[in-house]
């Protein structure tokens, strides 16, 4: 229950952060496009436009090791929960030129 509350708090922040932290959140999310192309469909899934809650749940699972990964576990560990929330929020808004 407590973890669910914490998760919901991050989802709320995910929606609020882009407006507040502006460019920083967007820039963190833009880094994802190097592998997760909005234009090319491959074995690496497209992220842009997927719901923030779903993306954040995946990122947190990669970070705590509960979801198997090749590189995403190593990358997610480089960010705080708040940062992952901000990234998820930006991606949900559709990052990518």
């Amino acid at each position, binding site marked *: 229950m407590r973890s669910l509350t914490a998760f919901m708090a991050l989802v709320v922040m995910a929606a609020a952060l882009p407006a507040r932290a502006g460019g920083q959140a967007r820039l963190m999310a833009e880094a994802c496009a190097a592998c997760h*192309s909005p234009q090319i469909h491959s074995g690496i899934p497209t992220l842009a436009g997927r719901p923030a809650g779903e993306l954040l749940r995946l990122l947190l699972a990669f970070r705590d090791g509960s979801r198997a990964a090749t590189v995403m576990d190593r990358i997610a560990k480089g960010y705080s929960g708040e940062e992952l929330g901000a990234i998820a929020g930006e991606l949900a808004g559709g990052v990518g030129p």
Partner: protein
Amino acid sequence: MTGRLSRRALLAGATALMATPALAAGARRARVVIVGGGFGGATAARYLRRAMPDLGITLIEPSRLHVTCPGSNGVIGGLGPLSRLEHGYDHLRSRLGIEVVHDTVAAIEGERRRVRLGGGQWIAYDRLIVSPGIDMRWNEIEGYDEAAAQIMPHAWKAGAQTALLRRRLEAVEDGGVVIVAAPGNPFRCPPGPYERAGLIAWHLSRTRKGCKVLILDAKDSFSKQALFQEGWKALYGDMIEWVSGANNGRVVRVNAAEGWVETDFDRFTPALANIIPPQGAGRIAVAAGLADAGGFCPVDPVTFESRLVPGIHVIGDACIAGEMPKSASSANNQAKIAAAAAVASLAGQGFGPVKAINVCYSLLAPDYAVSVAGVYEVADGRRAAVAESGGVSPLGADAHARKAEAEHAADWYAAICADAWGA
């Protein structure tokens, strides 16, 4: 405007102009000029356009097609044609309205904020992004110059050198020894020489008998070392031998005409020598005063603005980015940050630190890859890996995991190229 001003008035005004955001100047459209159309420069162009639809953007790149270094070891190993690694500038030009100029840059004048093309024309900029990659430091290995590279290819810039090394490899006969000489740090693509050794072994193990790949290294350790050594053993037995710097692996002298390679104590006459020499920032960066005594360009780790010449961002292999490796992935992320920092500067806004990512795959065979990933923050004035994050693929993983990473390597290549040159 400049025509009606005396030189003195112009210089006096320059100080004031520098303190004024370019966008506030009003009438004139701000312009960012980018030098170099590789992963760094092309990505910067795309993300500048995304941030500012009305920004003037000029990309200067001598080649009409960029041939990527990522993937080029596969071409040498015979996994695919060089043409698969070529990327043009049509998308940037016609879809994004970026002015792409195919010329060299002869000079950069940081004080006057302008660059001179090889053709003589001057182009003025408000911000400059320099992404020239690397150039070889000829003769640092005695006897290894541009002429020697036609016989003992470096293939450390993709294109004609890649094709040459592939042709030379195809001529190696049964029992032949191929030397890969790896440089000391820092250099472009730290795992690259070792990926290459593996893919050369892959080719030779399938087409020849009794061949060997000898890596003569200036270093005592290398990127993803345990993973490479584990994989080489599993895939090729004892075919690949690595000689560390401490074990006299550093190549100090070559004679291309006579075909020999020397370390301090030994002389080798291999069937083929691939000499990867010491490198520095691309020549134009050095000529512009952007490089330090070590040959690479010191930058502010937050904005990638040069510490030596204001108004110029240096990204990619040419810059000193702390713990971020010199890779396509690093250049791509640095480009996004530098583009945003340039736009913030044009708007007279501040710019805070943003974390950056590097992901790099190395093939040991077509269906066997390992990776390194890292997240880099700004700490103590430099880019440093975030504690408890990043790292390499696990040792001892099964064939399925290695194959999955090989598939990801191909998908990564398609995605990052689309991110830079458009899809």
